[in-house]
């Protein structure tokens, strides 16, 4: 009987079916890989199982018994522990205390039993084959060591199900092998491990069973042996190209933006590409490939360690977003909630934020002008809101995304970088955004479209660049690009292994 069974689980956000009637079981003592494109519902499932959110319908069963996981503490008690890409730890405390925070082992006198705690921590660390001691302050540990710490913490609460979400994204090769050895030890102890990764060679090397998700639906669950990497890719892709992408024909002009040898130590290395006027260039790749990091460095948000950029023939040193905007370069951030909008402010305040210098006369605001600007984009992007003065916090996800788009279009950029523009929005908004993008390109705007949704990349782009682990691996023209060869490039799967 399986340790954890999902039966008919569904969850939707504001009209978008993130998870649709998913059922499969996870057996104790096995490594169960969960694969699928971005937005296929993987992270939503993780949040359902760890009690961060609750399903709309369907049941979760532990050892055959239906359970309701209302919050993270309940999940903990049931032995379900999740580990994210950047583990959350107490940087100021020692390793041992991180493992036992909030539930220190007590001596007879009800005091903290330091020796007992450190011995117990040492035992677990030894088992995981770790090279740092229980007394080491966590502040000095790298990501790999912090992950081992999370695993140690899970073992100390004798967790029965450990979910690892993209654990190897930031690890070096030998750190990955070390992690695999640890996972195999967990398996021998009867712990079930849900392993989520887009690195199919890791899935092949580690997993006992593989579950493939697509568009929030459960496609298949098979023993790893029976699925080659190529077959997995074929199950992953093949999303219906139903949404008709109205790609207007745009006349491609000369080179507007050239980057060569862009490098940021430890994140991405020698990225070189060109963008032409009126062209939409898709930038594909999995989470952690470094696409957002490249965009943020170009826009001056993060530092750049090397490489040169030219905009319209003139060199450009990205010192700050303000400098980039002045050169006609705009960036629509991936994290809409925290970086795209100022929630408590109105639509017109947000729309005019990036262009205030142009809208003000001698430093004085002109509210009428701002309101008309906001109305223009509300109408152009069909944003459903009562008035420009409405607070952005009260808008739906789709409308918020349109306001962010409007904000950057108001800056009248010549080059627009879009980072996951349609992530988590309803189908209607997605179509509106696509229509706007292709219309703008037709008018001569140059667009770099970062997206993890293959249909969107293939449907919208004149050219497709693919990145993996901080490098630009291939460039495909619109006709050459298919879902398979883009995913293969992104996952690093070569022809013969398919």
């Amino acid at each position, binding site marked *: 009987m399986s340790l954890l069974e999902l039966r008919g689980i569904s969850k939707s956000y504001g009209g978008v079916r993130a998870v649709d009637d998913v059922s499969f079981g996870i057996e104790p003592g096995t490594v169960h890989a969960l694969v699928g494109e971005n937005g296929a519902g993987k992270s939503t499932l993780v949040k359902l199982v760890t009690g961060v959110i609750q399903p709309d319908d369907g049941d979760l069963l532990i050892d055959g018994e239906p359970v309701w996981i209302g919050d993270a503490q309940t999940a903990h008690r049931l032995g379900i522990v999740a580990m994210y890409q950047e583990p959350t730890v107490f940087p100021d405390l020692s390793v041992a*205390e991180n493992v036992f925070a909030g539930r220190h082992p007590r001596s007879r006198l009800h005091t903290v039993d330091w020796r007992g705690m450190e011995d117990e921590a040492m035992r677990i660390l030894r088992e995981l084959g770790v090279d740092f001691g229980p007394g080491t*302050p*966590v*502040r*000095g540990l*790298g990501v790999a060591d912090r992950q081992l710490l999370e695993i140690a913490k899970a073992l100390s609460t004798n967790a029965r199900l450990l979910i690892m979400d993209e654990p190897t994204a930031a690890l070096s090769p030998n750190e990955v092998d070390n992690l695999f050895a640890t996972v195999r030890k967990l398996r021998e102890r009867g712990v079930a491990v849900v392993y989520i990764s887009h690195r199919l060679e890791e899935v092949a090397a580690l997993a006992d069973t593989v579950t493939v998700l697509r568009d929030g639906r459960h496609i298949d669950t098979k023993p790893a042996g029976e699925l080659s990497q190529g077959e997995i890719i074929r199950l992953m892709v093949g999303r219906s190209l139903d949404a008709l992408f109205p790609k207007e024909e745009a006349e491609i002009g000369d080179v507007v933006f050239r980057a060569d040898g862009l490098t940021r130590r430890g994140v991405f290395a020698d990225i070189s590409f060109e963008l032409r006027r009126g062209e939409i260039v898709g930038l594909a790749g999995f989470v952690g490939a470094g696409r957002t990091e490249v965009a943020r460095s170009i826009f001056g948000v993060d530092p750049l360690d090397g490489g040169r950029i030219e905009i319209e023939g003139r060199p450009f040193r990205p010192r700050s977003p303000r400098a980039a905007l002045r050169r006609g370069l705009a960036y629509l951030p991936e994290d809409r909630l925290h970086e795209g909008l100022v929630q408590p402010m109105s639509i017109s305040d947000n729309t005019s934020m990036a262009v205030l210098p142009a809208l003000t006369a001698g430093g004085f605001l002109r509210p009428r002008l701002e309101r008309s600007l906001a109305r223009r984009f509300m109408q152009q992007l069909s944003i459903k809101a009562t008035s420009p003065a409405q607070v952005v916090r009260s808008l739906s996800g789709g409308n918020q995304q349109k306001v962010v788009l409007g904000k950057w279009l108001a800056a009248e950029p010549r080059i627009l970088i879009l980072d996951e523009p349609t992530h988590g929005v309803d189908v209607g908004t997605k179509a509106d955004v696509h229509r706007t993008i292709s219309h703008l390109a037709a008018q001569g705007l140059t667009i770099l479209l970062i997206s993890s949704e293959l249909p969107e990349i293939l449907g919208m782009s004149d050219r497709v660049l693919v990145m993996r682990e*901080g490098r630009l691996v291939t460039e495909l023209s619109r006709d050459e690009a298919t879902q398979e060869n883009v995913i293969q490039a992104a996952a690093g799967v070569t022809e013969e292994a398919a």
Partner: protein
Amino acid sequence: MIARVRAMRPQELAAAAFRLREIGIVLALLVVIVFFGARASNFLSVSNWQDIAQNVSIVVVVAVGETMVVLTRNIDLSVGSIVGLCGYLVAATLAHHPGVPVEVVALIAMAAGLGLGLINGLLVAVARIPAIIATLATLAIYRGIDAEITGGKNITASQLPDRFLSLAASKPLGFPALAWIALGVAVVGAATLRFVPWARDFYAIGSNPDAARFAGIPAGRRIIIAFALSGALAGLGGFLFASRFPTLDSGAANGFELTVITAVVIGGVNVFGGSGTVLGVVLGAVLVATISNGFTLLRLDEFWKIFFNGFAIVAAVTIDSLVTRRLQEALRRRRAELLVPSPARADA
């Protein structure tokens, strides 16, 4: 030495940074002792160091309480008023009932302080008022209550029993009585922060509040305990203050919170909570008191001390943030070397 530091793996660097602060203060203390020793003749005299120990004892007692609050990423500005108020309570009790044993009066002062601290805790944890604003308000409110109780009739030393007055003068084994009490409080404080589970939670709450909530730590209740303890120790500080300065008016211990916070910040307690030791705070308090005593002996203007306190807080905070930034830099650089993404690996 620099080469060795750069070669150290970030883990050793972090462990070293952990110890750095205490070593740093001891070094600073030695430099100061040599500097003032050479210039002021009676600086190294036993009686001078007895004075320093006496003056620092009240700061240490209150600073241990303040440390517990700062560890939880909060701050208690009202300790100065609590010291003044409890100090007056002690004097008033002894003046009207000289028979009451001194130890009982100390407990009364701590109980009163505990109550006042509890109010701070409730304001911060339950009413969700930011600690800076809540304790700024209670600073004024407790000082007002102090003035109302005093009502213009100060208690002078002449009204207090000799047994109490002699406490500050007595020096068992050559070490001032007040300093013995402060030492005891520091030891108990250090032991509590080391061995008592709910006290360890202070560190977790300050280090990463979300992770603490995630680990099931009741942050609200812990914060109330921290403020209550800070109040209780400020109450004991009031008792010591009254024995050291037996004539009390409603302005007693005005601005004392600044001296306490200087000792806590210089003592290496991170302003954002999560790290700090009682040993560091005691050393910080001794350093501040020694420099202040040195200023006096050199007949420097009284007000350079206030300037020094402020300057020391800003300097300590700046050094703290530079060290943590340097550490994160080392981490990122080390991770970059490991993570050399070689295209070759992809085609294996």
